[in-house]
């Protein structure tokens, strides 16, 4: 085993840190909290300009260590990379399944950081049960196009995105995993509306509605009715590589508060901090292992699920412990006098809460480990 980074990777890390220091200022972060939109255009555009989004794109021929390093550094720094993650994912999908025309028309905008894409996947009744979606794409025989009707939930960035990557049912007769089609559609297309969904995390998500949205075949991603294959590729990009590094900034912020308040001398607190440091290391090692399995072509197996469940649950526990430990000051939000770690402690509790749900619930991931890694009977 080897736990070192190559010189190229160290240089990428240095570049990331330089860009974040320059573009992700306290004011920029404040603005994301004020608006509820977890996006910092200057940061993502700088990544695009430096060619880093292109390096962070997943898929064959790409270096998965680059992909991990970029999202991990952003997470450790506390820089909002969600938009970058979605853009590089879809660029990766287009690289594999898109047309040359799409790669000319859409990919450069995504990888420059200037154009954003949101995901139209989950639906109000759906949740973990993705194949249950009801959004319909009907072939319009008169003009060789499609008419789409339906509603999507949790369309994060939907209100600022240029594109939506949309999953729809195109052939209801084709069984549980058949008859899906994936599209990439301009958000400006008539018939698409966006309603805000406000969350406890103060982040804005959206419900999006599709009423007789008419699109042509240039919006198809992959073959018609083969959308489940596209989803497989995209979900494999997602699983276990992002959102496993949150313990590091949490611990840094907590240590900052503990130092200022003198709590860092309390053995009960030190005991727990050491435990969190171990959990942060474990989360990172499990994630690096996932990266390595992708690099060797062995992945993705269940390694991503293992890392995801562990890291998100550890983050949640840690945030709740940190808040309790900080007492009343841990309840105060950003900019309130005396707020523990300037309000980050309260924020982390709220922010960590959906991490065990989005991108695959802990339950679904545990099912996955039991079924695929252990070969135990599938009980759904």
């Amino acid at each position, binding site marked *: 085993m080897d736990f070192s980074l190559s010189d190229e990777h160290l240089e990428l890390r240095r570049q990331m840190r330089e860009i974040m220091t320059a573009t992700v200022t306290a004011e920029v972060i404040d603005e994301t909290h004020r608006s509820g939109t977890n996006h910092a255009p200057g940061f993502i555009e700088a990544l695009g300009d430096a060619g880093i989004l292109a390096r962070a794109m997943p898929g064959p021929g790409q270096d998965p260590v680059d992909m991990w390093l970029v999202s991990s550094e952003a997470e450790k720094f506390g820089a909002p990379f969600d938009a970058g993650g979605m853009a590089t994912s879809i660029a990766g999908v287009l690289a594999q399944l898109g047309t040359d025309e799409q790669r000319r028309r859409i990919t450069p905008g995504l990888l420059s950081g200037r154009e954003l894409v949101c995901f139209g996947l989950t639906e109000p009744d759906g949740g973990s049960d993705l194949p249950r979606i009801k959004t319909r794409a009907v072939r319009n025989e008169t003009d060789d196009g499609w008419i789409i009707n339906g509603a999507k939930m949790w369309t994060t960035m939907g209100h600022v995105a240029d594109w939506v990557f949309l999953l729809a049912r195109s052939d209801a007769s084709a069984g549980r995993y058949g008859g899906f089609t994936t599209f990439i559609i301009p958000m400006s297309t008539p018939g698409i509306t966006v309603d805000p969904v406000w969350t406890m995390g103060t982040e804005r998500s959206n419900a999006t509605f599709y009423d007789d949205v008419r699109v042509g075949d240039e919006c198809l991603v992959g073959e018609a009715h083969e959308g489940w294959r596209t989803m497989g590729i995209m979900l494999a990009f997602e699983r276990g590589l992002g959102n496993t590094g949150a313990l590091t900034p949490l611990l840094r912020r907590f240590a900052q508060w503990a130092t200022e308040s003198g709590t860092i001398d309390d053995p009960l607190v030190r005991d727990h901090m050491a435990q969190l440091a171990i959990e942060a290391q474990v989360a990172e090692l499990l994630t690096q292992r996932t990266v390595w399995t992708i690099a060797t072509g062995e992945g993705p197996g269940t390694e991503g699920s293992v890392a995801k469940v562990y890291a998100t649950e550890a983050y949640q526990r840690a945030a709740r412990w940190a808040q*309790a430990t900080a007492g*009343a000051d841990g309840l*105060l939000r950003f900019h309130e006098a005396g707020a523990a770690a300037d309000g980050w402690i309260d924020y982390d509790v709220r922010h960590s809460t959906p991490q065990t749900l989005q991108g695959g*619930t802990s339950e679904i991931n545990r099912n996955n480990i039991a079924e695929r890694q252990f070969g135990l009977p599938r009980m759904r």
Partner: protein
Amino acid sequence: MALEFGLSPDQESISDLFSSFLAKECPTEVVREAEPLGHSPMLWTALQGFDAPGMGLPVEAGGGGAALADLVVVAEALGRAAAPVPLVEHLVASRLHPEAAIVSGDLIATIALHPADGSGLWRLAPAGAVANVVIGIDGDETVAVHAAPPGVAPANHACAPIADRSARLGDRVVLGPASAFDRALAEWRMLTASALVGVATAALDIGLAYVREREQFGRTIGSYQAIQHGLADFPALIDGARFLAHKAAWAGDNGRVGAAGVIDMDEGEITEHCALASMAFLQAGEAAAVCTDRSLHYHGGYGFSKEYDIQLYFRRARGWANILGDPARERLRLADMLWPPPGSTAGVGAGRAITAGRA
């Protein structure tokens, strides 16, 4: 006298009264509308309508003569409704300082949980944003300070009307030595425990309703064993906290305070009010945290959305408990009552009492 785990007729009628009042006057829309301050003057006025603010005082003092055993029932109903009124704090404060305007509820009273700092500041008093009277420790005295409330709270996790208050500016009355405040703190722990039991109970009810309805993979999610087993832990947490709060009330009502109570760790027998109040507070904090965590989680993304009620309870589970400070500190304080360090006088006013027993 014998073991009895049912509510007394008095408790039953108080429970019914408050539950039906809150069901009518405090649906969760009222809770939402009261945010971010976390206080509904209208609901407070309605509570005055049936003399709730003074109920914890003896009839002779113009109060309702309710026992602690009754007040824990009230506090649980308040928690279950996430009621945006500082009745727990007011009940505690009123018993320490039964001024007519406090008994009537025309003035809202609260307590500061920690002694004033060097500059005379009571940091983040519960209900400090809306209370006209704050009682707490300043130096070696227990004092009550009348002053206009700020009317705003710093933005906080629970949308609770917490605020810093001065122990010196305003109309200041000395109520007694600092030790006179001990009982109030124990009562606050006990009633807050009950309120948190109410929060946890609501989380169970809301969670059960959701998992019975929500389908995934063609089954209600409540049919999955992982969810069933997660929920199956709730009753022990909730009932344990509830019984501890009731036992603390029973101990208080029966004068089992300090040396008049029993703390016998060899036999595991504890009937001392302050120790039980501390235990109830800790157990209820844990119950509310765990039950709201899991219930929210079982909601999927919806639990996180502001539209659903579970997030209201999730945030109060933390806000109402954490205001006292790190629970580990509270456990150390409890440990000092249960196993007093050599030579210590242990605990806050209560401490060690009769200890029979084997080595």
